């Protein structure tokens, strides 16, 4: 990837993130923060590559810690977000059966 292309990707991704979140209702702030916390768990693939190419004991140790932390970020972020959103589904379904909203 050349520098300019990388810069374009960066710019477009930044606008995308902004647009995706704009006008989100306050009740979803916490779940959404949790969800975006899960999304940056993608650092796991980078940590895997870093450990996968590690040669010295030092690199391997740091890489091991990196993969461990990244896996925790991804899985923990998913579990917590899923649990929070589960409740929205439950109450939404209930509200529907009562003929509201």
């Amino acid at each position, binding site marked *: 990837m050349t520098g300019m292309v*990388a810069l374009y*990707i*960066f710019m477009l*991704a*930044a606008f995308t*993130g*902004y647009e*995706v*979140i704009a*006008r*989100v209702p*306050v*009740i*979803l*702030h*916490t*779940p*959404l*923060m*949790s*969800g*975006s916390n*899960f*999304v*940056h*768990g*993608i*650092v*796991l*693939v*980078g*940590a*895997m590559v*870093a450990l*996968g190419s590690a040669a*010295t004991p030092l*690199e*391997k140790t740091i890489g*091991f*810690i*990196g*993969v*461990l*932390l*990244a*896996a*925790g*970020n991804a899985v*923990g*972020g*998913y*579990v917590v977000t*899923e*649990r929070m*959103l589960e409740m*929205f589904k439950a*109450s*939404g379904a209930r509200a529907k059966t*009562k003929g*509201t909203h």
Partner: protein
Amino acid sequence: MPGWLSAGLAIQASYFVTAVLFILGLKRMSSPVTARSGILWAGAGMGVATLVTFLYPGMSNYGLILPAMFLGAGLAWWSGKRVAMTDMPQMIALYNGMGGGAAAAIAAVELYRGGAGGHVTEALAVLGGIIGAVSFSGSAIAFGKLQGLITGSIRFAGQQVLNLLLLAAALVLGGMVAAHFNAGPAVVTGFFVLALVLGVTMTLPIGGADMPVVISLYNALTGLAVGLEGFVLDNAAMIIAGTVVGSAGTLLTQLMARAMNRSLGNVLFSGFGDSGGEATGTVTGSMKPIEASDVGVMMAFASKVIVVPGYGMAVAQAQHKIWELCQLLIDRGVNVRFAIHPVAGRMPGHMNVLLAEAGVPYDLIADLDEINAEFETADVALIIGANDVVNPVARTDKGSPIYGMPILNADKAKNVIVIKRGKGAGFSGIENALFYLDNTRMLYGDAQKAGAELIAAVKAVG
């Protein structure tokens, strides 16, 4: 395998799919109707990206990768499943810090190895490294504060100067690494140590009430760090996902700060957040206690009750009891509404999540703008462990640290009942003028216990 179907192409295609799934997932998560499917979409993207990364050319050390993955994933799964809903904010901080630490670890592997990329690549690795390390140690402190492991805020003169010096020193060492100027492993180590210390000293002075904003900020920073390390590793999925989270998280942080009527700089550098109470010595009168049985009668014969939940309800896990109480009142024909302040609890939306867990329908829950005019017509405002968000000094006392923050006008109700554990001040450390008003009565006790007593009292009315 045909020639065009190389591992490299499969990886790139999968990362592309992952990036699309992440963006669509986040988009779905920003609407209550589709929110639940959003996390499934994003989760699918993560699964695809993780699996395909095993095909990466030149990968080795599978004997280390797999145990590290299973260990990290297992611990996070276990802790995430068993944590109480009320403790979610600090878990988000913890998992977010782990992501920042992972980004810093990637930078560390690259920088200790040295000379893999050009100066620009190493500069990006340094930048992602410092941001990731600050997010890691800062989030750990935030977790400790919300979990109650670290109490109080450590503050001393010249703290901001120290932070600036730490940042400058870390950047100088990072610059030496990127410029290959006398940069041995010791310099790399010094760089990371300084960055980690900076995260600690930046976060320690910030009070617990401001933690949601800080966690959101670190979330955005971790995203940015992941994006930067994505450039270092030439990994499109990391660049896109990290940058999207970085910008979305920044916007979310601003929205939260705005809901508290504070600027981000104010949160980070003013040192308010707790024990800023010296400005308000003007509260006069006394707090007047009341018995649960009297409150039960008052509410049972009211025509309109507005419930204002706060962190006290979350701590006591009282949401189920409170909803049971409200159902009793609704059955008696009482008009019951829940009023949610944007920053009630420890995070925006925290109360909504808890009330949803208890089964409170959406249409009974109102936010500040919707409900504020209605307090004047309410017979009872029932404050459950909320404090600063109903403190009238925010409207009147220019000297107060919370002056200007929009509050719920609970003081306008005919009767104000405050369920509170003790006589202490709120999380901000500010005395609450509401508690001393003539129409306010204090019902002392844990919200769970008080809820049970009120249920019994309303039932006794018959």
